[in-house]
Every structure is written in C-alpha cells, then in structure tokens.
C-alpha cells in the first residue's frame, strides 16, 4: 500500500515544482509583457484543462515515445527513455496541472494594481527586480493557492499518467491507478483505504490553505 503513496507524493512534488516555475513564468509573460501570438499560447494552455486526460496522455505518448520527436531526442542525446518510468508520471502530472497554476498566477498578477509596478520603475528598478520584489510578493496569496491546487491535481492525476507511464507496480503505479486496479481485481479493502486517504488528504490541503490565506492576506 505504501509504495504507490510514496511514489504519488514524489511525483506530485516534482510536478508541482515544474508547473509552478513554468506556469508562473508563462502567466507573467502573457499578462505583463508584449508577446506575439498571446491568444494562441493561452488557448493552448487552457486546452490542456478541457481535453480529456487520455487525449493529453496520447499526445504525450506520441511526443515522448521511442519514435516520437522528443523521445528520440532524449534517447539519442541522453540515452533516456522516459515513457513507462516515474519520469513519465511527472511529465503527465505537470502538463495536466499546468493550467491550474497558470490560471491562478494570471489572476493573481492581474489583481496587482499596475501603479505599484510603475512606482517601482520610477524608483529605479528593472523588470526582473520588480517581478521578485513587487509583483510576486503582492500576488502571493494567488500563487500559494495555485501551488496547492496544482499539487492536489498532480497527486490525483490518472488518465494521462496511465497512458504514458502505465500501471507498473512499484515503478509507475500511483494512488489513482492503484485504486483503479484494486477495484478491477476485486481488492476492495485496498481501494477503500486509498480512497479515504486521497479524500481526507485533499480536503485537508484545501482547508488548511484557505485558513492560512485568510490570515495572511495583507492587502488593504
């Protein structure tokens, strides 16, 4: 029972980290800088949110498969095969969770009064410094809720993970796939334990985050 839990937590932590960095940066460039084809990129990210995870999983399987463009690149240059490893779980989870991080970061950045950035600019700060000293601290509550939702989503990723990482016990079997196969093979007690664990953990994560953010919100 513990192997899928530990793997799920490991995958969710790494995936959240990746989605946090990429989601926040993409949200920053799409909301605060002039980027060509803005609408195109935004649609692409939101698409990940509405596509069935099996579709996203299939696309990832094609891209990272042995004959896929990215899979071949990794295999030839780094002798890495990601499909059906825990790395594939990470890729699937971070891609599926990315829109949540992006949406939260975007809303958070847009909620910051642009005059703060203007004030910082007239006080002699460059864009990178403004990002770290003004924008990021002021959008902190939105970023934190983005991270929590991303983590919860990554922890519960099922469809895309199953497509690219399969369900190999002790190797790529995460909590959601373990639940599915426990039910399929008639092992109800295991399924129930994992279901309770997932539900309680996710509830606590969101509950505690809301409590923390209510205390922390310093905006006037």
């Amino acid at each position: 029972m513990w192997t899928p839990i530990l793997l799920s937590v490991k995958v969710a932590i790494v995936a959240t980290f990746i989605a946090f960095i990429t989601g926040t940066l993409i949200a920053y460039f799409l909301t605060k800088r002039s980027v060509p084809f803005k609408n195109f990129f935004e649609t692409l990210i939101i698409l990940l949110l509405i596509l069935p995870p099996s579709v996203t999983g299939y696309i990832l399987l094609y891209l990272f498969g042995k004959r896929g463009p990215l899979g071949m690149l990794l295999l030839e240059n780094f002798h890495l095969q990601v499909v059906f490893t825990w790395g594939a779980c990470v890729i699937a989870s971070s891609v599926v969770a990315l829109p949540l991080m992006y949406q939260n970061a975007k809303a958070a950045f847009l909620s910051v009064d642009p005059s703060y950035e203007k004030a910082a600019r007239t006080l002699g700060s460059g864009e990178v410094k403004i990002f770290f000293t003004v924008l990021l601290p002021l959008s902190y509550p939105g970023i934190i809720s983005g991270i929590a939702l991303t983590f919860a989503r990554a922890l519960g990723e099922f469809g895309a993970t199953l497509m690219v990482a399969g369900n190999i016990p002790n190797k790529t079997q995460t909590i959601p796939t373990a639940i599915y196969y426990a039910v399929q093979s008639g092992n109800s007690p295991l399924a129930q334990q994992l279901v309770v664990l997932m539900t309680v953990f996710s509830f606590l994560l969101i509950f505690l985050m809301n409590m923390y953010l209510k205390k922390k919100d310093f905006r006037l």
Partner: protein
Amino acid sequence: MLYFNVEKNIGTFNLKCEGEFLEGVTVIQGASGSGKTTFLNLIAGLLVPDRGEISLENKVLYKKTEGGKKIDIPVKRRDIGYVFQNYHLFPHMTVLDNIMYGIINQNKEKLGLTGAEKLE
C-alpha cells in the same frame, strides 16, 4: 531645462504638447481628461510617445523622428522622481523597506547611509 515636443494617441484621445520648463516649480493645470497624467507619464517614461522628443538638461530621454534612430531611455535610468496621485506605499513592505526601496537602487556608497541613519 526640460524640453518636450511629443505626440501620443490613446484610442480616440490625441495628445500633442510642445514647450519647455525652466528651473523652479511648474504647475500644470487643465480639465479632467485633458492629458495631464498622460503628459507626466510620457516624461517619466511610463508611457512611450508615438513620436517626438523629450530632453532634460540637454540629455535626450526620448527621440523618434521620421527615419531617425529611436532613443528611449528606460524609466529606471531617467532619474525622475514621481509622486503618484494615490501615493503608493508597497503594502507588503515595512516603512523602512518602503523608504529604502528607491535608495538602494542608487549607488549605496555615494549615499554612504544605512536605512536606520537615513530614517533619523
């Protein structure tokens, strides 16, 4: 001396201003929506003019003419102080951090002061 001759279009609003300010206090007055803030933002560099020239003490801050090379000194290197309409204290910083924010961007050695000394 501040010299300016700039044009800026924002939607249907068209701002054209030309003139110079000599040393001392200058007051800009005009009806609401006549472009006072836009004009100040152009000088500070928070808005980019469509064309024209702005120079301060013979240093060109902005210049764009037909066929000429564009000059646009970034806001942080213009050395222009700006007090916003609703004065913007950073809500996530302490009073000291707010005071120090602009100061540490300048040459610390030139100032030779720590935050506490500056506060005193």
